[in-house]
């Protein structure tokens, strides 16, 4: 799953898609996940980072991440023409 390369993410969690002008605000954990996705981290790497640092478990986080990624896809922030990495 790749976040589009040109997506801009600010330190305050403001996400800007320069291709279509859409902008969104995300909370700190959303920002952290998008950052990791931008860095090319795999789902497993993200999961292990979040489970280690926050009070959650594998199953809950997997479900939440699935929902979050679905939302990013709907918001047109995810590459669709490239082969998925993970």
């Amino acid at each position, binding site marked *: 799953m790749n976040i589009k390369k*040109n997506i*801009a993410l600010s330190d305050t969690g403001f996400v800007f898609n*320069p*291709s*279509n*002008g859409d902008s969104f605000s995300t909370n700190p954990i959303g920002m952290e996940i998008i950052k990791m996705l931008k860095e090319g981290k795999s789902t497993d790497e993200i999961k292990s980072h979040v489970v280690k640092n926050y009070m959650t478990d594998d199953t809950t986080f997997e479900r939440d991440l699935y929902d979050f990624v679905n939302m990013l896809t709907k918001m047109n922030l995810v590459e669709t023409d490239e082969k998925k990495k993970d």
Partner: protein
Amino acid sequence: MKRKRINIAVTGLNAIDSPGPGIPVIRALRESKEFDVRIIGLSYETLEPGIYMHDLVDKTYQIPFPSAGTQSLLTRLGYIHSVENIDIIIPNFDAELFNFIKLEETLKKDFGIKMFLPTENQFESRHKANLEEFGKKHKVKVPHSRMIFSVNEIPSLKNEFSYPLVVKGKFYDASVAYTPEQVATYFNKISAKWGLPIIIQQFVYGSEVNVTALGDGKGNTIGAVPMRKQYITDKGKAWAGISLDDKKLIDTTRKIIKSTKWRGGLELEMIKTAEGEYYLLEINPRFPAWVYLAVGCGQNHPEALVKLAMNGKQVKPFKKYDIGKMFIRYSYDLIVGLKEFEKISTLGEL
């Protein structure tokens, strides 16, 4: 660097809810690094706000409506020139362009006034009624469209179009109709204002993206900035917009300018579908009212147009622009003394 002093006459001073491009064009010219401009406003109505914006417009003259024809426009411009010594005219209304295009050579020859307008052929070929043909010729996707001249033609539209469809005036106005009854309502409303024909265009779902651009008349794109409307008024006008990073849109603009050898400012109105396809809805043969966003993004298109008009020599194309710059319009109440209104109403100048 000492700036060259020039007198530029500009139309489109109607900075209203459906704004003309005059005021943003003037703001762009005021910010020119090469020209120190004196702005002569050319107005049609006495309540065009630009007439009273004295920090932007030095002097305004009323000019005859386009329906009065080229001769009365020429006579009036001749008088204005005798007082103001105009160097350049930048017309900004679709409806007046035909007359100015017709007068371009005469104004240059008789008064030394320069313009940088599309040719009559370019102006006509991108006309709403001819757009489908234009698309075929220049290999750009255009939604199917057809001209109608009477409400009697409305029932048969269902054989050619699927609802919703767009009902357009020949110069301005467009409404989306979901039923034949709505088509009839918009037909009457728009034709009463802008005359016939009415253009029926297939509605395409997607997000509206626009480009403001400038062609040098030799096929080169001097500048192009794409924008997505973020806030749209009930008249379909952008109240806020943001510059985009859209290579495909820029490439399409370059392709159209190259293929048509477009001369002057233009605005492309396009729809980007969910599948990433672009459909050309309209080509406006002049700068849009949001052209000042291009200046904010680092491309002063009106200044570049003046350079092209002044010497006709090569103007270097802009290579980049800022992405993610926004414009937001606002309304503002000018306080005007009755004397000023009286002057423009009775003497035709202020």
